[in-house]
């Protein structure tokens, strides 16, 4: 049968297909319009991978508080979220670092005034393979390791083995924080990560490489570390030997040197549902979720 279709019928099929494609193409914009104008408008929330699990938990819990408000959460890194805020495609940008002046200027150039909220505190844990005998380092040593001045574990009291450096990609707020507070020791310096640093696209990328590589060193938010498979190092400030192990307590008391604020940014003063949502996050319900996920809630300070 199929082989014997007359020529003209085949043409009809072609025309039909073309028309159908055109029709479908014409339909699409209308559909999106109704989605935006409808009552179920979603709050777009994007950015930091450190914050993404907390943001997801908030969005989920908020469904029970206000079922009519939909919140769409995506990760991608602080830089990604901030870029989206500058380009006007999100309502809230999550960031594990403060917005840079240059970024604020770019936003203002696009007619967007970024408003900053500190929504949680995170301790950044420096992690190694559980078999690694090294258990404490100060920031001078960490800086030497990550700039490539120290390349063998034996120079910091470990085995005679090359150090494999793991870091997040440059779009990660954690990367930028680590650059400023560890690689540059919080000083005005031109030091940057050694070129042989492996840049991992996600937090999970770091932990899974670290679990199989006994010579690797990496960093990750406290909430992401699984102490059974990764060993957290006690860290001391530059020039000091007061090593502090990262915990929720040591981070909120300020003893642990690598504790930092986590931010949310909105485009302009938030109004309506957006403002209510942010108030809820900063309130006791929102902060309880922060504590549940291994981060440090604001109320502790």
């Amino acid at each position: 049968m199929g082989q014997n279709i007359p020529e003209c019928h085949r043409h009809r099929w072609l025309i039909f297909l073309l028309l159908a494609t055109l029709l479908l193409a014409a339909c699409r914009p209308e559909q999106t319009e109704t989605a935006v104008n409808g009552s179920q408008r979603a709050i777009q929330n994007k950015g930091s991978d450190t914050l993404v699990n907390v943001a997801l938990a908030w969005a989920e819990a908020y469904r029970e508080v206000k079922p009519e408000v939909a919140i769409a959460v995506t990760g991608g890194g602080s830089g990604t979220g901030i870029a989206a805020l500058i380009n006007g495609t999100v309502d809230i940008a999550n960031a594990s670092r403060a917005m840079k002046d240059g970024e604020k200027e770019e936003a203002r150039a696009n007619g967007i005034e970024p408003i900053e909220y500190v929504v949680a505190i995170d301790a950044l844990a420096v992690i190694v393979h559980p078999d690694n005998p090294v258990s404490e380092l100060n920031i001078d040593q960490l800086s030497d390791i990550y700039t490539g001045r120290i390349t063998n574990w034996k120079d910091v009291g470990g085995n005679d083995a090359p150090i494999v450096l793991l870091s997040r990609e440059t779009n990660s707020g954690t990367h930028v924080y680590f650059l400023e507070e560890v690689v540059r020791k919080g000083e005005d310096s031109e030091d940057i990560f050694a070129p042989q640093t492996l840049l991992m696209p996600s937090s999970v990328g770091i932990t899974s490489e670290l679990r199989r590589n006994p010579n690797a060193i990496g960093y990750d938010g406290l909430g992401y570390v699984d102490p059974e498979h990764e060993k957290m190092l006690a860290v001391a400030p530059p020039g000091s030997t007061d090593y502090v192990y990262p915990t929720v307590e040591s981070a909120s008391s300020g003893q642990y040197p690598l504790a930092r604020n986590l931010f949310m940014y909105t485009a302009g003063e938030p109004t309506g549902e957006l403002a209510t949502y942010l108030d809820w996050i900063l309130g006791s319900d929102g902060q309880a979720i922060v504590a549940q996920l291994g981060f440090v809630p604001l109320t502790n300070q």
Partner: protein
Amino acid sequence: MAAQTNLNSMPPQDEATTPTNWRELVIENLIRLAGISAVLIITMIFLFLLREGFPAFVEVPLSDLFSSRWYPIEDKFGLLPLLAGSLIVTVGAVVIAVPLGLTTAIYLGEIAPPWQREILKPFIEVLAGIPSIVLGFFGWVALAPLIQSMGAPSGLTAFTGSLILAYMALPTIISITEDALYAVPKEYRDGALAIGATQWQTIWRVVLPAARSGIVIAVMLGIGRAIGETMAVMLVTGNAANIPDLGFGALFQPVRTMTATIAAEMGEVAQGSLHYSVLFGIGIVLFIITFAINSLATYFVGGGKRRRGGQI
């Protein structure tokens, strides 16, 4: 039916029939549009790339673009490590894929009995259908630990990327080489065998040289496939913007390719920033490289036709 008769009667009374047969006209023009749109879209893509990426070559001094440090958040835009990364991974992939692909194609086309071919060919087609991200994931989970256990500091190396890319380029190389071998006239083989050449001598001295232009195209397209691949490479090469030391050891160091850089960083940049233009600039460099490879392949096709046309 109607279309059939009109098609046959068209050449003699061309002008007279066209206005009456609107269907013919619509279809003809739609096909013409489809043909032109391919060219149009390519031109538009290139113009768009130029518009977005051109500022990079004006605003970043050339000496910076040719420096050895890529660290965009500090405005260090040295493209050399990325070029080196793409080059090492691609060359590694070609060195693995070409001998493997050619021998497989020769075996399939010249030596294997038909029943074996029936079994092997579908498998090669399946290999072509595996999404690259799946191969990348396989590389991350299975290959990387293997390479690490062989003594590399980390399993995420240029070589891991080369292996994955080689397997991605293999189906292209095999099927095009096989087509080229198939196109060699049977008389060539008969003639060689008739004057007493062994099967190996026939393949090596007669069939392969005759199919040379097709084989070159197969290799070129394989390279094109390898250099443009992104996701799999991003997973397994470690993405360190490092220029490896020259030599064999370079394969076992982490590298960052141009494609992975664009994919990893495009999401973070603000539109119109310098970093954004530089990423498009990398796109221009990639476009030029693949364009050059394709042009070379086309040149070899043209050359091959002329030569064979003269011989037969």
